[in-house]
């Protein structure tokens, strides 16, 4: 029979083509910078990462999760069994039955996908991705029927040359999509690249419930600082780009995309794929960067990315809020890639846009972004008589003040927090003028040299004193101190003031008389929430204050950025809306009268929204207002 000799040829032929394509792909990845990975351990851990960690993210959309289980599970099982049965000729009715079952499962899944694709949401890519459910249906149907046929479970009268020929063509088409496409860059590429991406992920700490959010340090003696060409990425970053399924979840959560700034994380990753394999973005069928047409970007592995593939504006639109990374089912690291390319722009080209140049020059010359007199950093507390750790030598809590010291609005937050600590008799001290900017902004603007200098300075200063923990009101400083100073030898126990106040409350150290505030919502700062997983402490503080938080639609790990991170207000890429306005609209939608925040940058951004708007209060301010001041004679 035709199927007897054609089936193995089809199967092995497709497999061989896939392997050739895959090898080419692997070689393309390996053109990237070397980055050591634990090969065996990674491969061993891969199934678990796939089934648990990845599924955990996918599960946020239950329908697609189940669909994917059916389709992918069915496909893998069906293909493996088909290889045994049709490829190696193992004849077993149990196996045939299992093939039928798998193909049926795959068929059901494919039907769901097809149903979903009738009128797909804007975030989904079209083009080949619209073809995929059809290919899946053809493949599963053909395989199902052929298996019926070869197992002779089919009414003999129905089998004819034409029919079996059609089935074989169908199977061939299905295999072309599923296997050949996998190796040669079709939609199914995600399966093979995704699996390897999970195995060789740059941040293995992210799996198993952990977190890894700190940026990787730049070697300042590299011949090119940052990423100029696609091949300047680490090889497993390139691999990660290929894992993208173009589901557009990143696009849906990206604040810059929503604000009409020229950034779309999905398109950015697809442009990296274009750069990796060479060509243009004409084959991209998703939403464009707002305000920029598709089809004009060209790139190849040896070409500088910002010269024709991705515009610099796109890279500078990012607020580094990490919403895309949090949402990505393939665990792709968009922010790392963006900052890597920014490093090239800043440190090789000297093309930091907007006020970024001034801010970096100021950080270099005065250790604060405003270019203010470093000897006046501690002036804000002149009347507070804060203990300097240089005088007291050691303390339980080192209060990291951050650059809010220079900003009049932030000083109110700092004062409120000092009042809270005083009320709880906390043994704390401050660095005073010895403190420098944490380096957060410099690093996000791509100036790792300045970040590293500031980090080393701060680590050296901190190393002089004894303290149990650092507490700060600035989530950016918190993140940098906790997650990024480790690479330079600074390991500390760092707490955000929300965590610290929560502890004080739990220990009953604060005597509070809550005040009625009306409807209050809470805005999760990106660098506290997504970067450090701290969603509970601030809410717990608010509930202790007797406040019932009216959650905005986007809160917790899905919180929308205020627009203030990553140097975005400094580089100031124009869009249609302002991110802060959209965030305040979120709060208006739940009729909040007060937005509780836990970050001075968020305070500044949200208070920049034209009134009338809900009032903006930091947690420290809310707590200090509720403090019962004991009548001291």
């Amino acid at each position, binding site marked *: 029979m035709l199927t007897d000799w054609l089936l193995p040829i089809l199967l092995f032929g497709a497999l061989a083509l896939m392997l050739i394509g895959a090898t080419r792909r692997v070689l393309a990845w390996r053109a990237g910078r070397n980055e050591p990975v634990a090969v065996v351990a990674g491969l061993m851990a891969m199934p678990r990462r796939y089934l648990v960690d990845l599924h955990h993210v996918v599960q946020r959309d239950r329908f697609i999760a189940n669909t994917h289980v059916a389709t992918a599970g069915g496909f893998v099982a069906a293909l493996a069994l088909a290889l045994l049965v049709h490829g190696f000729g193992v004849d077993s009715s149990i196996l045939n039955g299992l093939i039928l079952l798998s193909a049926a499962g795959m068929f059901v899944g494919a039907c769901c996908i097809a149903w979903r694709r009738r009128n797909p949401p804007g975030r989904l890519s079209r083009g080949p991705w619209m073809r995929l459910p059809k290919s899946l249906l053809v493949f599963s149907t053909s395989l199902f029927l052929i298996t019926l046929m070869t197992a002779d479970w089919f009414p003999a009268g129905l089998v004819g040359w034409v029919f079996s020929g059609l089935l074989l063509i169908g199977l061939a088409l299905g295999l072309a999509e599923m296997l050949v496409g996998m190796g040669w860059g079709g939609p199914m590429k995600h399966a093979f690249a995704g699996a390897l991406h999970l195995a060789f992920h740059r941040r293995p700490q992210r799996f198993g419930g952990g977190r890894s959010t700190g940026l990787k340090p730049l070697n300042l003696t590299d011949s090119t600082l940052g990423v100029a060409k696609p091949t300047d990425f680490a090889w497993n970053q390139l691999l990660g780009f290929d894992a993208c399924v173009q589901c557009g979840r990143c696009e849906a959560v990206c604040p810059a995309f929503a604000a009409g700034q020229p950034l779309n994380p999905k398109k950015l990753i697809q442009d990296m794929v274009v750069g990796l394999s060479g060509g243009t973005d004409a084959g991209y069928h998703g939403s464009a960067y707002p305000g920029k047409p598709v089809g004009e970007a060209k790139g190849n592995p040896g070409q500088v990315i910002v010269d024709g593939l991705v515009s610099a504006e796109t890279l500078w639109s990012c607020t580094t809020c990490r919403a895309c990374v949090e949402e990505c089912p393939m665990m792709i690291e968009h922010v790392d890639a963006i900052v890597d390319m920014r490093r090239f722009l800043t440190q090789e080209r000297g093309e930091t846009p907007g*006020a970024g140049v001034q801010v970096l020059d100021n950080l270099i010359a005065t250790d604060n972004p*405003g270019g203010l007199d470093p000897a006046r950093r501690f002036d804000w507390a002149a009347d507070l008589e804060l203990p300097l750790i240089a005088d007291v030598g050691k303390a339980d809590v080192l209060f990291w003040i951050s650059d809010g010291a220079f900003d*009049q609005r932030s000083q109110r937050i700092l004062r409120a927090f000092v009042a809270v600590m005083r009320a709880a008799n906390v043994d704390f001290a401050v660095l005073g003028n010895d403190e420098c900017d944490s380096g957060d902004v410099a690093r996000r603007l791509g100036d790792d040299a300045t970040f590293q200098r500031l980090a080393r300075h701060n680590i050296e200063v901190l190393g002089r004193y004894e303290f149990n923990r650092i507490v700060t009101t600035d989530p950016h400083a918190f993140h940098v101190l906790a997650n990024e100073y480790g690479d330079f030898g600074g390991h500390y126990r760092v707490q955000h003031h929300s965590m610290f106040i929560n502890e004080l409350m739990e220990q009953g150290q604060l005597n509070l008389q809550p005040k009625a505030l009306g409807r209050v919502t809470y805005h999760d700062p990106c660098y506290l929430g997504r970067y450090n997983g701290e969603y509970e402490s601030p809410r717990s503080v608010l509930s202790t204050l007797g406040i019932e938080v009216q959650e905005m639609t986007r809160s917790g790990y899905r919180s929308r950025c205020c627009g203030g991170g990553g140097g975005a207000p400094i580089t100031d890429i124009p869009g249609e809306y302002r991110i802060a306005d959209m965030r305040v609209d979120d709060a208006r939608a739940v009729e909040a009268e007060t937005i509780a925040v836990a970050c001075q940058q968020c305070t500044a951004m949200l208070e*920049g929204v*034209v009134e009338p708007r809900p009032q903006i209060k930091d947690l420290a301010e809310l707590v200090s207002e509720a403090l019962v001041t004991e009548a001291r004679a």
Partner: protein
Amino acid sequence: MSLRIRRNPRLERIRRNRLHPEYESLMAARVSAIGPTGLRRINPHQTGFVMVQGRKRLNRLNPDGVGFAGAGQPGRVQAKEKPLHRVADPLGYVAAVLDLPGGRLSSHDRDVLGLAQQLAQAKDEPHAVLAIALGDVRETDLGGAGADRVIQLNQLHNEPLTGYCPELKRAILNATEQHYQPAFWLFPDSIDGGADLGSRWAVQLGERAAVQAWQVSKETTVCRGGSQLTDWHRPTPRVLLLAPECGAPVEELRHEALPLELTLPEPVSVTIEDLGPVSVDPSQIALSEAEFILAAGNGVRNWDQFHQVATVLGATEGASRVAVDDGYMPRHRQVGASGTWVSAWVYLAVGISGAIQHLQGIGQCETVIAINLDAGCDMVRRADLTVIADSEAVFAELLNLMNERQTGIAPQGVTVHEGEARHVA
């Protein structure tokens, strides 16, 4: 003429000075009147003395003292001419080369002349201050500012000395040097030409000029170093480029301002040719450089009108962050801590409520005028003059007024109002 009051300055001086040896005798001449009931009577018209400037002062320490002797009729105070200071035969000169921007003495020029007088008087021999005024001079009172002698030229061999002509001016200084050898050469260290000419002159003389000098005596000079961060203490050189407020301007005396002869130098070849001023559109001047900024905020609705007003007033346009965010103005026009820090002389803020970042950005502005609907906003608290009104209506009237000014119709209201304002003040 018979009404003219004759004064005896000597007696007046003695009456003013209670320590004067003749004071007692002069004052004792008058005895207070004792009234019929034995009460002591004071005639207020006969008490006190007359100050140099002609003001009458009561002498409460000596109520019995002589009255306004000679002053006769109260209310007839005379404006006294300042005394004239003469240097008859100077043995040397202190030369002050003036900027005269727009043909008039700048306050910097007056400071330089004041210092020149100090240096001239510190000399042992009589020295005269020689003011060198080159170019278009409209100032009539160089003597009042402290010039004993003047060399005034508006052309050299038919080459006008207006515009940029440092080489011609240097030739004149050269001729002056040959004739008069001034003990000091003083220049205002200014962007109006003084710094340039002074530097050229110092190099030509081979003198190490003191630059940004702000404390100058005959022997030593203190000058500001780079970035205004250091002071250099040094012997006073012959050529000094003086910082503003280097000396007190002359006020109490008049000087002769006699013209001085100068044999003109040979014609000089000029290498740098002045092609004239470049017309600069005020709206295109960078915010940080602008002297008059018209800034719009959230309260402005009619943007065409706003641009029109800026053009008519000759103001540079600025904007608040909100106006920029809303796309009405380009980002490089944003004023404030997150935009440009401005140092304009006059800042006219329209519909700007005054966020703290914005107020930080205009911290260095001399005069702030606000047009706003909300009298309680922070901008009103900052402004020197606020008009509570709808900006569109005020703009319309401003355009009318400017139109009247340009077409020659006397804007009556303005003068009236100015008078009123003065009256109120």
